[in-house]
């Protein structure tokens, strides 16, 4: 951990609100991205990210400085999102909404924006096929490059459970991707005037 961040953490643990705000500034993107990947909706992701930082603010005195702050923060976010998902019991309708949703992008190039949106929709629909804990494990592994040990700490699972979840999730993602491709090919064939 860099000295500046450690300094901010110590100050935040001593009740310095400004130091905590600078930590929010530093970690807003990773936390928001995790919430967005978990929940698939921009507004819910923002609410979840705000709630994560509020929970972190309340618990900052109990944070153990020997642990990685990013893992600690992502752990709070992941647990909150998993709880939200359990409460919500996502319906097929909502999953379709995710696929339709277009996140506003600030890039001026429309082609790039369209391509990025397609990728987002594709990855989001794939992630939505996983159960919340498997999804959290995949997100932590691929977006944050967390090791299996770090994932196990963040999700409070054993390392073997993480390995098993990652394996199950990868298999599911591969199968889901193949099904999507097959469905897309079928749709194109049906829409084509040649058939």
């Amino acid at each position, binding site marked *: 951990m860099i000295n500046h961040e450690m300094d901010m953490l110590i100050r935040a643990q001593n009740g310095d609100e400004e130091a905590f705000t600078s930590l929010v500034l530093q970690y807003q*993107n990773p936390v928001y991205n995790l919430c967005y990947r978990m929940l698939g909706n921009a507004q819910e992701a923002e609410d979840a990210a705000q709630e994560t930082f509020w929970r972190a603010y309340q618990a900052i005195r109990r944070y153990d400085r020997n642990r990685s702050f990013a893992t600690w923060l992502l752990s709070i976010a992941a647990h909150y999102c998993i709880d939200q998902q359990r409460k919500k019991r996502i319906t097929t309708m909502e999953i379709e909404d995710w696929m339709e949703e277009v996140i506003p992008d600030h890039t001026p190039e429309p082609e790039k924006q369209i391509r990025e949106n397609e990728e987002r929709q*594709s*990855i989001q629909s794939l992630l939505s096929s996983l159960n919340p804990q498997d999804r959290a494990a995949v997100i932590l592994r*691929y977006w944050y490059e967390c090791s299996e040990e770090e994932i196990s700490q963040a999700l409070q699972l054993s390392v073997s459970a993480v390995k098993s979840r*990652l394996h199950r999730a990868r298999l599911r993602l591969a199968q889901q*991707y193949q099904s999507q491709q097959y469905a897309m090919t079928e749709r194109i064939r049906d829409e084509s005037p040649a058939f």
Partner: protein
Amino acid sequence: MSHLPFENWIFDREKLTPSQIAELEAHLQTCQQCKRIQTGWKEVETLLHTTPLTPAPPQFVNRFQASLAERKAQRQKRQVRIALFALGGAFVLASMVFVLRLFWTVPPARLLSDLIGWITLAPQRWSEFQYILYYWGSQIPPLALVALVFLLTGWSILLLTLWFLTFQRLSKLGVRGQ
């Protein structure tokens, strides 16, 4: 056909030895199911590695600061309510203990007769009290009376200010002072 350990190897290709890779490749030549998983996984893995972090919306930190101030204010109000409720509860409990002790040590008949006696004698006591006030009022020099009034008023103002400041501090900073 058994797909183990090939199914696992597809996802952990980088950890395989050259002989295991050769074995996996041979299996993929004959197993369509594993071949499909590998093709799908390669695409998914590329997507996972190339999809960037979605950035937080603009003004996220400002909204956090506003929300933090609001939540802290709510928490402090809740703490004050809990503290006042606890104080009130303690007072009620102490009163109940006092009343129960009174009933335990003094017979109810005597309590009732004392109460009736006190109510009957109340007008007489009130007139006696007025007489005492009048008597001492006429005995004390006017200057001492003014000084006494000033003293009492001063103490009242001081105590009220202290009470007001304590109440303000509790409302503003919360019971834990955070």
